[in-house]
């Protein structure tokens, strides 16, 4: 069990939040959609990095402010390394350069 620091409400218990899976998967633009192959669609819709290590993912504060945000979390230790807002770029954290 972990505590997530909602950027809008502060630290709250995990059970207040909903999980939004992998972050930074860009929805194809209308223009791209017209020419995308089936394989590209599969990549967008289904294929995931499923990282063992630092994973960038979306969470929503369902039982609070109901706003979405991004989290960098280690999938082995469940340690949350960074919470950042939607639209912000992926922070430069990997299993090798973990902030300590």
């Amino acid at each position, binding site marked *: *069990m*972990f505590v997530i620091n909602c950027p809008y409400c502060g630290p709250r218990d*995990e*059970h207040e939040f*909903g*999980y939004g*899976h*992998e972050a930074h998967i860009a929805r194809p633009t209308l223009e791209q959609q017209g020419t995308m192959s*089936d*394989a590209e*669609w*599969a*990549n967008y*819709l*289904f*294929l*995931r*990095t*499923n*990282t*063992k290590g630092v*994973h960038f*993912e979306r969470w929503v504060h369902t039982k609070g402010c109901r706003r979405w945000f991004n989290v960098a*979390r280690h*999938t*082995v*230790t*469940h340690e949350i390394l960074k919470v950042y807002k939607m639209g912000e770029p992926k922070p430069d954290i990997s299993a090798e350069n973990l902030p300590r």
Partner: protein
Amino acid sequence: MKQAYSIFTLVRNALSYHQDWQEAWRSPEPKREYDVLIIGGGGHGLATAYYLAKEHGITNVAVLEKGWLGGGNTGRNTTIVRSNYLWDESAHLYEHSLKLFEGLSQDLNYNVMFSQRGLMNLCHTEHDMQATRRRVYAIQMNGIDSEMLTREQVQEMVPILDCSPKARYPVLGASLQRRGGVARHDAVAWGLARKADERGVDIIQNCEVTGFDIVNGVVKGVQTTRGAIGAKKIGIVVAGHSGVMAGLAGFRLPVESHPLQALVSEPIKPILNTVVMSPQVHVYVSQSDKGELVLGAGIDAFTSYAQAGSPPVIENQLNALTDLYPCFSRLRMLRQWGGIVDTCPDASPIIGKTPVENLFINCGWGTGGFKATPGSGNVFAHTIARGEPHPLAVPFALERFTTGYLIDEHGAAGVAH
């Protein structure tokens, strides 16, 4: 040759204070090269090796396991076996496995304690009843046993279930697969290992695969913590670590790894002689031969490689349990644990080729692959031996995520099992 297990060998060994039992399988040093390497010594990997040797005459095979045999999901599941799946593709595949389970103890000369005590899916709403009826009819059309029970029939089979109209979750009826039940998970792994070993398969524990040797898109071998091992063909059967293996081989999968938890109670006298699942209220329960209640529910929502989940999942599951069975409210729980399950977007497995030549994969069984152990190994062995998918495995190819031909079993697999 292995010494056959029987009442006579038991008596004979008792006379020598059980000091002279033959080892169940060898622990050889890995050879430099094999015809086939299987990565992952869970039930599915061991079954694959066993059927490669038994049905395809391929015995120069090694199973590489990073930990100990069956220490992954094979030894952590709640052991439910059934084949009552909605879609034809799944029904045929899981029924193939159920049939193999029915003969497995004989085939392996190892008691896997397969107990066909029946498996019930409860319905709590009118909608539940309609959806379940539809599923039961679809399953019957595939020639698989499945029937509807009325509320009275459910109450008669499970007297401790609160079927009263004022129950928090009223029971309107249930589906029943009489041939469903439970089996001893460790015994399945050990029995398969013993027989695979007898036919010449090398079972190598404490050997983690850390990389692949791929030349011009063709796999040639693996790097392991015990050195490089070459192979003509390789099968990946690592469940929760499938994404990691695919990453090492340079491709991606439509799979996410999640914790799935289970727990058992203190042992009590026999009180429940069937398996009861409630997909809506989200708990399933059976009673082990030792008398413990074996309880399971759904996955933790987040991606994880820790074999542990969060307490709220357990809390929900126990709330559901005590709502349905008030008499369990003072029962103490003994142990709780988690495994990492490999979930697919359509809740169906992936069996077949990968983008790398001679590299095959069998994964995505998620929350419900124990029941498929012999069937999965059987069709995967065929797929590896022939280089072409077994007819039952064809619909489960990785390509289905490109063609869009998904086998959406979420409805039929409402909870984890």
